[in-house]
C-alpha cells in the first residue's frame, strides 16, 4: 500500500472512529472524563513531587553544602570517626585531587571540608554540636545563588561561626555572642577554642536544627589539630546534569594517579532526599496503578459494549470487504482518540488547578521539618507524555481483546446478531 493510500485509510479510519464515539456521546464523554481526571490527578501529583524533589535537591546541594560531588577516602563515612588519622586527606592529596578536577572541569568550584563534633558552651550550660568546617569564601561559592542565605560564614570574621536556630535557642545565643567549642583532636586529646556567633540559620530538619554549626575551615582544623587536612572535598559543577558523567571521569583520572577515592554524587549522600523520593515515587506508582486499572477497565467496558452493539455492523463491513485488521484498527483508533482527548482535557485541568493551587499560597509543615514550606505544583512535560503513552498502550490492549474476539466470529453469525 503506498503512502497516499495509507494516509487516506488513516483519515477515513479517524473520521469513522470519531463519528462512532459521537454516536454514544454520553458513554464516550464519561470515559473520556474518567481518563481526564485520572490524568489530572497523576499530573498534579507528579508536578508536586517534582517541586519537592527540586526543593530537596537545593537543600542537599546548597543548604547541606553537599555540592554535586564529594570525594573522600573509601569507607571514610564508616571508619573515619574511629580512625581519623588514617582517613583524613593531607595537603598533598588535596592538591592532586584539585589538579584532576581542574583538568576535567576547569569551571568547577572546589572546597576542602572537615567535620568536627564536641560540646558547645555559653559559659553557663553546654550541649553537643556537629560542625562543618569550610572556608567562608568556599562556602559562598558552594551556595551559589543562595550565597546570601542565612548561615553563610563571613570571610571578614576568621573566628565567626553560624549556629542553627534550635541550638541558638537552646543556649540563648544571638549574633555577637561568644561561645566555647570543646572537642577532641585527631589524636584523641581534648582541645577547646573560642568563637563568635555571626549568624543563625534553619537546617530545615528537626533532627539537626538543635546541634548544627558552620565554622571556618581554619577553626575546625585548629580544634581538630589537623593543619592542612580535610576529611573530604566538595565539588560544585557548572552543570548539574553532568554529575554522573564527570563522576566517572574523575574516578578514572584519580585511579590513574594512584589515588583510591570514593567519588559520590549528592543524591547518594543525601539520605533524606533518597528516602523522600523513594516514598513519593512509591505513592506515585500506587496512584498510577489505580488510575491505569480504572481507565483500562472503563475502556474495556466501553469497547466491549461498542463491539457487542456493533456486531452486525462489523459483519456488514466484513461482507463488504473490509479486512479484519482494518476493523481492529478502527476500534483501536476510537480508544486512542478517547485517551488522547482525555489526556488533553486532563492537561488543561492540570494547568488550571496547578495555577489555582500555586496562587492560593498554601503551606504545610513536612514530617521532621522545622518550618512550613509552600505547597507548589510544578509542570513535568516528560512525565505527562509518559502517562499519556502508557494510558494509550493499556487502552489499546483493553480494546484489542473484545475486538479480536469479535473479528473471529463468523460473518454470518455477526450479520445475524440482534
Amino acid at each position, binding site marked *: 500500500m503506498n503512502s497516499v*493510500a495509507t494516509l*487516506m485509510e488513516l483519515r477515513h479510519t479517524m473520521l469513522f472512529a470519531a463519528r462512532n464515539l459521537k454516536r454514544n456521546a454520553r458513554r464516550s464523554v464519561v470515559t473520556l472524563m474518567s481518563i481526564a481526571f485520572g490524568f489530572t490527578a497523576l499530573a498534579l501529583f507528579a508536578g508536586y513531587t517534582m517541586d519537592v524533589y527540586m526543593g530537596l535537591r537545593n537543600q542537599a546541594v546548597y543548604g547541606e553544602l553537599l555540592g554535586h560531588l564529594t570525594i573522600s577516602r573509601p569507607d571514610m563515612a564508616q571508619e573515619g570517626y574511629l580512625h581519623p588519622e588514617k582517613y583524613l586527606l593531607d595537603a598533598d592529596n588535596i592538591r592532586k585531587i584539585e589538579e584532576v578536577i581542574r583538568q576535567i572541569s576547569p569551571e568547577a568550584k572546589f572546597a576542602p571540608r572537615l567535620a568536627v563534633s564536641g560540646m558547645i558552651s555559653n559559659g553557663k550550660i553546654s550541649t553537643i554540636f556537629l560542625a562543618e568546617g569550610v572556608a567562608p569564601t568556599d562556602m559562598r561559592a558552594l551556595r551559589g545563588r543562595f550565597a546570601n542565605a542565612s548561615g553563610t560564614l563571613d570571610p571578614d570574621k576568621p573566628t565567626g561561626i553560624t549556629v542553627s536556630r534550635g541550638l541558638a535557642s537552646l543556649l540563648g545565643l544571638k549574633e555577637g555572642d561568644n561561645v566555647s567549642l570543646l572537642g577532641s583532636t585527631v589524636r584523641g586529646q581534648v582541645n577547646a577554642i573560642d568563637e563568635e556567633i555571626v549568624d543563625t540559620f534553619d537546617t530545615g530538619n528537626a533532627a539537626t536544627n538543635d546541634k548544627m554549626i558552620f565554622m571556618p575551615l581554619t577553626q575546625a582544623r585548629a580544634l581538630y589539630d589537623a593543619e592542612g587536612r580535610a576529611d573530604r572535598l566538595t565539588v560544585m559543577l557548572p552543570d548539574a546534569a553532568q554529575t554522573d558523567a564527570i563522576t566517572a571521569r574523575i574516578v578514572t583520572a584519580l585511579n590513574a594517579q594512584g589515588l583510591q577515592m570514593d567519588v559520590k554524587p549528592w543524591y547518594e549522600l543525601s539520605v533524606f532526599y533518597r528516602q523522600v523520593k523513594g516514598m513519593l515515587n512509591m505513592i506515585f506508582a500506587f496512584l498510577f496503578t489505580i488510575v491505569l486499572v480504572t481507565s483500562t477497565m472503563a475502556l474495556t467496558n466501553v469497547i466491549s459494549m461498542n463491539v457487542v452493539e456493533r456486531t*452486525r455492523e462489523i459483519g456488514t463491513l466484513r461482507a*463488504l*470487504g473490509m479486512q479484519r485488521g482494518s476493523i481492529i484498527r478502527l476500534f483501536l483508533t476510537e480508544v486512542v482518540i478517547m485517551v488522547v482527548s482525555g489526556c488533553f482535557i486532563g492537561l488543561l485541568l492540570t494547568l488550571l488547578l496547578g495555577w489555582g493551587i500555586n496562587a492560593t499560597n498554601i503551606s504545610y509543615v513536612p514530617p521532621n521539618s522545622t518550618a512550613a514550606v509552600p505547597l507548589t505544583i510544578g509542570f513535568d512535560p516528560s512525565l505527562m507524555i509518559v502517562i499519556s503513552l502508557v494510558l494509550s498502550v493499556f487502552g489499546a490492549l483493553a480494546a484489542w481483546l473484545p475486538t479480536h474476539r469479535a473479528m473471529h466470529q463468523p*460473518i454470518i453469525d455477526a*450479520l445475524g446478531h440482534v
Partner: protein
Amino acid sequence: MSTLLELRSLNRTYHLGHATVPALCGINLDIRRGEMLAVCGASGSGKSTLLNMIGLIDRPDEGSLRFDGDDTSMLSDHALTVCRNRKIGFVFQAFNLVPVFSALENVMLPLTIQGVPEVEARQRAGDWLGRVGIAKFAHHLPDRMSGGQRQRVAIARALVTQPMLVIADEPTANLDSANSEMILDMLWQLSEDSHVTCVFATHDQRLLVRARRHVLMKDGQIIDDMENHV
C-alpha cells in the same frame, strides 16, 4: 453465457449445542454471468445458507465452489475478503447501512475499502445515488430516511464497485408494497442494464415473476430449477 459460479456437492451443517442441523445437502448448481436467479422456498429450506455460500461469507463443509474460475476453498480469508469487495455486492434484508455515515458515504464505503481516491469515490457514489433516484438525500443519515430510501442506498452501495454478482437476501421483506415494487423494478432494470449476475432469495411472488430462473429449495436441497420466461 459463460458460467460465473459452479457449486458441486455442496454440504453445510450447523451445530447448535449438541444438535446438528443440515442446512445444505449435496447442492449442485451452475449460475451463468448476467443471469437473474431467484432462490425460493419455505423458511429454513436453506435459501440464506446458499446465498451465504455464493456470497463467500460462509464456507461449505464439503464440496467445491468455483467463483469466476477460482476454487474458493483454496483462497485465504484475506483473498476472499478482497474478492467480496471487488466482485460481489450485497443487499441485505435489514439494509445494514452504517448509521454514522450519510447515504453518500455509505455508497462510497466499498470504494474507500478498495482504496479508490476520495474524489473519484465521491463522484461514482453520487452517480449511483442519482441512478437509484435519491441524489437529494445524499447527505442524509440512514435514520433520517424511509425504508425504501435506505434500500435504494443499499442497492447503490452493492453496485457502485461494478461487481460481477449481486446477492440480495429478501430485499423487499422489510418494505411496504409500493416500495417493494420500486425496488423490484430497480433491481431488474439494473441487472438488465449492467448485465450483472443477480441472485436473490425471496418469498415475494412479485419478485419471483421477474426472475428468469427459479431455484426451489426444501430441506437444504434443490428440488426444482426452472427457467422463467419473463
